[in-house]
């Protein structure tokens, strides 16, 4: 089956997840068109991360279905979904802390191939090693290549997470608050990087920094209490009364929107 060119890269139908009495994701139906940078925003506890957890197979959903590039991925194990081409970063930054920065990238790139030969040295994989070098250069982490990932600064770990996502060469990249904890300089570098990546990879971004979201997103989806509140272009979202009231707060003028206070 060949999906038409403008078929959604990711389609979610009636996805629901309860934690005890709490409905973290409430009957969410969404489509992400290809070739556009999508952002998901919403107050703390809105269910954004849980939605990513359901898409990436990290949590089982209570009901609903997920389709990736026309193929149903509901209920698949995380490593299977990863190998189909969905990479993600975690909100709580997580890397392989005892491995070197280069090894973090190396194993991420190699894991996609499935075969893990116990009889060959990692250094003999030319293609994978070259990819690691490239990603290190791209992210400006080359100087830290041999450092243990656990000893990096918060900003560098966040960069490494993005580097790992790139090394996997995914078709779809889910970024959960990628610039959280970064310095302004690192933020600028990372935002530029995300923009560049969006040329070749489909990206869905969860972000609290409204300046960044409205600067780079083509489409914005607003979540609140597990449900979709609104979905549309940045202009439409900025003008949406319900969004303003429920989440964005008072706008001082037409195109300035205050950053929400984080819990």
């Amino acid at each position: 089956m060949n999906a038409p060119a403008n078929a959604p890269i990711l389609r979610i139908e009636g996805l629901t997840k309860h934690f005890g009495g709490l409905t973290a994701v409430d009957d969410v139906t969404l489509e992400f068109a290809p070739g556009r940078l999508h952002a998901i925003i919403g107050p703390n506890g809105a269910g954004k991360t849980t939605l990513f957890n359901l898409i990436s197979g990290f949590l089982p959903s209570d009901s609903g279905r997920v389709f990736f590039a026309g193929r149903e991925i509901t209920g698949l194990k995380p490593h299977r979904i990863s190998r189909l081409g969905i990479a993600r970063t975690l909100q709580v930054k997580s890397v392989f802390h005892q491995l070197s920065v280069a090894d973090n990238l190396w194993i991420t790139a190699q894991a996609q191939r499935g075969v893990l030969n116990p009889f060959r040295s990692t250094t003999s994989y030319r293609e994978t090693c070259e990819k690691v070098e490239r990603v290190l250069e791209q992210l400006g982490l080359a100087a830290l290549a041999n450092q243990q990932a656990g000893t990096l600064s918060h900003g560098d770990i966040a960069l490494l997470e993005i580097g790992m996502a790139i090394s996997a060469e995914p078709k779809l990249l889910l970024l959960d608050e990628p610039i959280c904890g970064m310095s302004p300089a690192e933020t600028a570098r990372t935002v530029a990087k995300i923009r560049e990546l969006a040329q070749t990879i489909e990206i869905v971004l969860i972000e609290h920094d409204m300046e960044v979201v409205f600067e780079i997103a083509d489409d914005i989806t607003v979540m609140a209490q597990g449900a979709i509140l609104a979905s549309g272009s940045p202009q439409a979202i900025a003008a949406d009364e319900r969004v303003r009231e429920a989440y964005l707060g008072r706008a001082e003028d037409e195109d300035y929107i205050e950053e929400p206070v984080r819990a």
Partner: protein
Amino acid sequence: MKRAAIERTMLIASAAFLLTVPWLVPAIADRFWVSVIAEILIWSLLAASVNLLFGYVGLLSFGQALFFGFGMYGVAIGVEKLALGFWPALGLGIAAPVAMAIVAGIFAVRLTWHYFAIITVVFSLIFYFLALTMKPLTGGDDGISFTLPAVFKFGGAEWGFASATFQYFFILATVALCLYALRRLLGSPLGKAFMAIRDNDVRASLIGLNVYWLRLTAFVIAGFLAGLSGALFAFFGRYASASYMFYHVSGEAVVWAIVGGAGTLFGPLVGTGLFILIREVVSTHWQHHALIVGAVAILIVIFAPRGMVGLWRDFMGRWSGGEK
């Protein structure tokens, strides 16, 4: 001298020592110490199996003695009940623990942390009591003694464990081969995948690693190491007994691996050597040698959480760092 040069010199010196033990040791001390060193080498494989799981995959097993016991019984039953020669008996002493590791692993590696530790203990206890009850097969409390088969026969000549020197070199070669294979493994994609799981199993599954299969693979390799250790020990002692399957033995191997340095290649060998030497030196003078073992273990865990090899690395790091 540079750090790498010092470490290489130490490695060469250790290798030279180990290669000359059967002649050097009787010249300076009692011949008895040759077999102590052989014993250290054998047990270091059991510690290495704990280390592969704990130091490189993040799974703490208190049940590796189960596979050690299966290795022992594989050899003893092979020789005594099935009248096998050396190599087929050794084969059985490896196949039995590997098969057991596959079965136990299928259940155990679904769990992590204390649940994993507990299920490994439960498995080894079940088979410990089974071995005690199945007297006709296992000899129960008394175990099985057997007569040594020859390792090689060539014309009229025979080589076997009856010769202490042959025995020593057979053990040394086997252990060296295992350490070399482990070193290769740790530098391979599979080794990196193991370490990724050790560091962060959630992340590992998100980058596309099949955590369950990889843990099972590691568990079976560890079962192989522990089983080989037991098989060698059976030939070394010419007997097998259920007492070696008790979790007390597993616990000792955990202490050896952690004190020597979990997550390092030579840590288990160093830890095993230290504790067996303490046992041999002290137990002849003082029956409470376990107290010293406990004290050393606690001190090292508190003051050198990365074990003796880690302590050495820190020392070398500081020393060569200060030299720049």
